């Protein structure tokens, strides 16, 4: 028995190459074309991988051919950078993938769901047999353990998620927070949507073009505010997201000071994603004001990533332990089975396939 993983990912291929192999192939078509005993296709925006079990060794080209979108085009035409992992290396690779150690953004949460979805989609079709079933079940367990016992998923790494994380650290529940969008840019809209997804219900939009403000307000379920009324809104709101095209700062300590006197016990969180900045940076020195511009948001995201990178070694240790345990348990189980069936054990085949 050969356990293998053949694939492409952001580490080895560009988007165009990934697109070429992320076609209409299914686990069933791979089973048929490559003559595998079991197969599972994991396809995300950053990777295309086939996990398979076979009696005899299946070549990388065979798998590549079954993945190719345009059958008339030979994979050798542009030498796709496929990687191949076998036996315990394959086990380790899957555990790393499911735990988001192999992801473009280390520790991201989507890969776990994508892996689970890929597994669920073929579980009932028969493409996945006992080996892959056990392998993927263990991979999900490992991924959960890695997330629970390390800080690998800690911190936010995009503008929207950093804004949400920080807002939650300041206000706790966001359901009572009032948000003002000043300017109707794309990133501020995305940030607003991220806040709405965490419970914000009072959203106001102000823009130089009132029509655009109305349009965005309608899209995000908020209400439009005339542009000359936004300073007055600062008395009521908790979060201000600015992204106007103003050449000079719209909000300065002089303008904010009288407003803050009326809201001494309520913090004001300002996310300034405009370039040039809409808010004078010295505003951050005012009591109760937390100002984040695009640089500081990037810095927070980098700190989160650095924190995640620090956790890689701890996560790898957990994975290594599980790889050893999984390979041992599989080989023991198969050894027992082989005594009665006289089939070769997986341990032997795993060793044999470590080429």
């Amino acid at each position, binding site marked *: 028995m050969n356990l293998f993983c053949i694939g492409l990912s952001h580490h080895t291929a560009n988007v165009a190459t990934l697109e070429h192999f992320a076609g209409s192939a299914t686990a069933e078509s791979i089973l048929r074309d490559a003559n595998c005993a079991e197969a599972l296709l994991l396809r995300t925006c950053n990777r295309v991988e086939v996990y398979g079990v076979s009696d005899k060794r299946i070549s990388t080209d065979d798998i590549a051919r079954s993945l190719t979108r345009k059958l008339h085009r030979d994979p050798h035409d542009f030498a796709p950078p496929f990687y191949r992992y076998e036996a315990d290396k394959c086990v380790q690779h899957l555990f790393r993938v499911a735990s988001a150690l192999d992801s473009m953004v280390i520790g991201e949460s989507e890969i776990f769901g994508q892996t689970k979805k890929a597994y669920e989609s073929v579980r009932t079709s028969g493409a996945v047999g006992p080996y892959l079933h056990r392998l993927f079940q263990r991979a999900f367990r490992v991924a959960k353990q890695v997330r629970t016992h390390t800080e690998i998923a800690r911190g936010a790494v995009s503008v929207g998620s950093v804004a949400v994380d920080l807002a939650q650290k300041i206000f706790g529940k966001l359901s009572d927070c009032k948000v003002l969008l000043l300017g109707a840019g794309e990133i501020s809209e995305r940030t607003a949507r991220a806040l709405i997804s965490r419970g914000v219900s009072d959203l106001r939009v102000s823009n130089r073009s009132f029509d655009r403000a109305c349009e965005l307000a309608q899209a995000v379920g908020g209400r439009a505010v005339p542009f000359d009324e936004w300073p007055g809104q600062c008395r009521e709101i908790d979060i201000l997201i600015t992204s106007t095209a103003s050449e000079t700062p719209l909000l300065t300590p002089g303008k904010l000071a009288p407003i803050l006197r009326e809201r001494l016990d309520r913090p004001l969180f300002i996310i300034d994603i405009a370039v040039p900045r809409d808010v004078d940076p010295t505003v951050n020195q005012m009591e109760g004001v937390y100002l*984040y511009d695009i640089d500081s948001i990037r810095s927070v995201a980098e700190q989160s990533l650095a924190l995640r990178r620090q956790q890689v070694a701890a996560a790898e240790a957990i994975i290594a332990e599980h790889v050893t345990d999984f390979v041992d348990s599989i080989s023991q189980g198969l050894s027992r089975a082989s005594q009665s069936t006289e089939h070769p054990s997986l341990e032997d085949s795993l060793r044999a396939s470590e080429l």
Partner: protein
Amino acid sequence: MDRYILIVSTTCFLAAVVRTSLALRAGVFRPGRFNFLAIVLGFVFQTAFLSIRGHALGRCPITNLFEVFIFLAWSVAAIYMLVGPAYRLSLMGAFTAPLVVALQVVALIAPIDIRHPAKLPANPWLEFHASISLVAYGAFALACIAGVMYLVQERQLKTHRLHSIFYHLPPLSDLFAAITRLLWWGFALYTLGILSGFFTGHPLPRVQVVAAIGVWLLYAAILQARHLRWLAPKRVAALCILGFSVALTLLWGITFTAEMHPLP
């Protein structure tokens, strides 16, 4: 014998401190069961110590500065266990344990465990007055700890430098709510303690009365400023730390005076 129990208790709290310090240094702090269990165990040994000491004295064991420190440390741990889980401030244990360790280590090392030559008779009002005042001090200590947590969190948010601990600290709003509640609890208990002092049947030393009323006025001023929204939350948090430092100093003065002029 009872001192050994206290050493074991201190070791439990110290274990929580060491574990937290190591985790913070490695950048992998996670509030877990270990800290809470270590504090619970430390509290159990504290209670055992106070029980043995109280049994030997035949009264509430707050007859000298040593016992006052231990009783205060016990109050801090007790209120933490009541408040921590209720307000989901699990990280408070990481901040509470160092204070308890400091109080108990000072009590164990300093030559302040001076036994009274004659056995002091029990005075229920005096014991109630002293013990309820110390429990109030425990609430003020926790408010001080929540204040430290608030300032740590606030500083990280202001400077945009987020340490691993940032992700485990409660939101500023939750911390401020906890500070306010702890201040009110402490103030109510302290008021009760001061009032009960007038029922002891004996005139209290003037220094003690002035010091106690001074602490009461300090916390009354903080609460009034908070109630009227004169102060920003950050300043209230800072005042909680300052207030407890002053209160602790005055407590030493009050206990020292009481040892000099023991009431019957």
